[in-house]
């Protein structure tokens, strides 16, 4: 018991330090860096949602671009057709739209596991991509749709205020609060009886069925929550990016979500968050420094899979455990 208290106290302490850092950082960093961090936090929300399926339910989706993209396009449509620019409406719209798509796709996909689940999620997400790509009079095609800076809690960006400052300050805190809320909710979900049931399904589907867990139903709910989280991330992403294009619906974007989740370590709760933030820096710097950025990312991924399959957090945990044992 004392061991547990010591551990959780240490955990609380480090969480407090990280939180303090996240709060202070915008005043220490230049706006560009803060915006970069915002992107990282947004991808972390997507990763949290994605990992409910991969890490906790044992389903590898290669189609999460669909929900991220749906969240983003829902926002773009709200702007285009309803002329609304309230961030809260964006979020609700993004979540509802992505949850609706997740409900439809999830209903079809949860009958399958393993490779068939992966391929089916991929094929369905590509349907959305091809629609966004081809129906250019609705979606803007490859030019995409522009999304202006939204009002946050009813407050517009001050006239004459620099957009960059707005995004690096107010929008950052907005994202941070939603990220923290999302984090807390997901933490409760995976530690709830429902979360335990998902882990049971991951470990042993047959036995889960034989202790009364309705496997398909639970997978479906997990799929829905996962899609809604990823959609929320998409809705937060689009004002930051200012534009949504079919690229974020393409399956290679799903690949990136898988990538950063595994980079952080999908067998841990915080792994995907770390992975998302680190990946975002990695990609940004690789893109900024070489045209061969895909090569850099690809090599990182290959090395990761071959040498560090537990990811950053998983590996750190193992090292920590070994050090503690040695001490």
């Amino acid at each position: 018991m004392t061991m547990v208290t010591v551990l959780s106290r240490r955990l609380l302490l480090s969480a407090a330090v990280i939180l303090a850092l996240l709060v202070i950082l915008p005043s220490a960093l230049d706006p560009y860096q803060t915006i970069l961090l915002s992107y990282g936090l947004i991808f972390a929300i997507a990763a949290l949602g994605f990992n409910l399926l991969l890490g906790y339910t044992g389903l590898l989706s290669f189609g999460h671009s669909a929900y991220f993209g749906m969240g983003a396009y829902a926002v773009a449509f709200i702007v285009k057709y309803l002329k609304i620019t309230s961030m809260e409406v964006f979020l609700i719209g993004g979540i509802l739209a992505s949850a609706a798509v997740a409900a439809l796709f999830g209903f079809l996909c949860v009958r399958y596991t393993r490779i068939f689940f992966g391929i089916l999620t991929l094929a369905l997400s590509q349907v959305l991509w091809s629609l966004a790509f081809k129906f250019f009079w609705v979606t803007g095609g490859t030019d995409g749709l522009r999304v202006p800076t939204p009002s946050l809690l009813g407050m517009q960006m001050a006239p004459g205020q620099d957009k960059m400052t707005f995004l690096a300050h107010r929008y950052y805190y907005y994202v941070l609060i939603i990220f923290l809320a999302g984090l807390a909710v997901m933490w409760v979900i995976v530690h709830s009886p429902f979360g335990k049931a998902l882990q049971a399904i991951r470990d042993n589907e047959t036995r889960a069925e034989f202790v009364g867990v309705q496997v398909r139903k639970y997978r479906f709910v997990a799929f829905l929550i996962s899609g809604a989280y990823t959609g929320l991330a998409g809705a937060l992403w689009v004002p930051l990016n200012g534009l949504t294009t079919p690229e974020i619906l393409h399956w290679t974007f799903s690949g990136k979500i898988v990538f950063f989740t595994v980079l952080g370590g999908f067998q841990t709760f915080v792994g995907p968050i770390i992975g998302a933030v680190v990946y975002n820096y990695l990609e940004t710097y690789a893109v900024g420094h070489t045209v061969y950025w895909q090569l850099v990312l690809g090599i990182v991924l290959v090395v990761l899979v071959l040498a560090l399959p537990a990811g950053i957090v998983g590996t750190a945990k193992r090292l920590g455990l070994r050090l503690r044992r040695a001490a």
Partner: protein
Amino acid sequence: METLIIHLLNSLLYASVLFLIAGGLSLIYGVMRIVNLAHGNIYAVGAYTTAWAVGRIEGGAPTIALYAILPIGAVAAAALGAVLEPTLLRPLYKRPEEYQLLITFGLLLVLEDVMRFIWGAYPLSASALFEGMGSFSIGESIYPAYNLAVIIVGGMAAAALWAFVYRTKFGVILRATSQNMRMASALGVNVNQVYVQAFTLGCFMAGLGGAIIVPQQGAVLGMGVDALILAFVVVVIGGLGSLEGALLGALMVGVVREFGITFFPEIELAVLYLMAAIVLLIRPAGLLGRA
């Protein structure tokens, strides 16, 4: 009538190339239970290599030499496969399949940029081969003879592959391994060797697909990723791991694509993906797959 014939020929053209790509993907999955996300890029390597080789000797060499060098793309793809399987995939067979998918995704990213590095960002063309064959007339319309050659090569490849898998000793071993790897291993089959051979053969097919289509379409970056998704559609419809299924799937996708592009271009791709999704729902193992 003429237009119908032309549409059908075009469908067969698509189907031939798709069969080569998807057949390779399916063969690899059937034997090794690995879905290679980089398979489309292997096809692209085949296309680029042939286009590059043709470009090198074009002008100086007789036309016949250009045709003789065409298969080099398939050879390059096969060589690549023979190197990749033992180095990247073999260490992962005992791990969950998530990792196998991921490493091939990493490979996809790497190959995409390696091609950019070697052959640059601009498309390569081998159209000399395409033009060299001229055309023939169907009624009032003219049709490129090269397209017909592709269809014939595709058909011959399908026949050769069928004979190879069902009529040779290696084919027997391949099929045995795909049905029960442990049993095959217990009976003295060198599974490692079968795997590298199957992977190489699968890559050879993809490379051949790239090599024969490049005179008609050219080689561009991103062609591999697009091809992969179509190959997925083909194998899902036909049945992952089934060569006959890949043939059937390729024909179906070829026809739907050709008529889709003509009659419902906006939803042509969506229809293909939906076809795959529907087949997966009704017959998870594909139309000709084993359950």
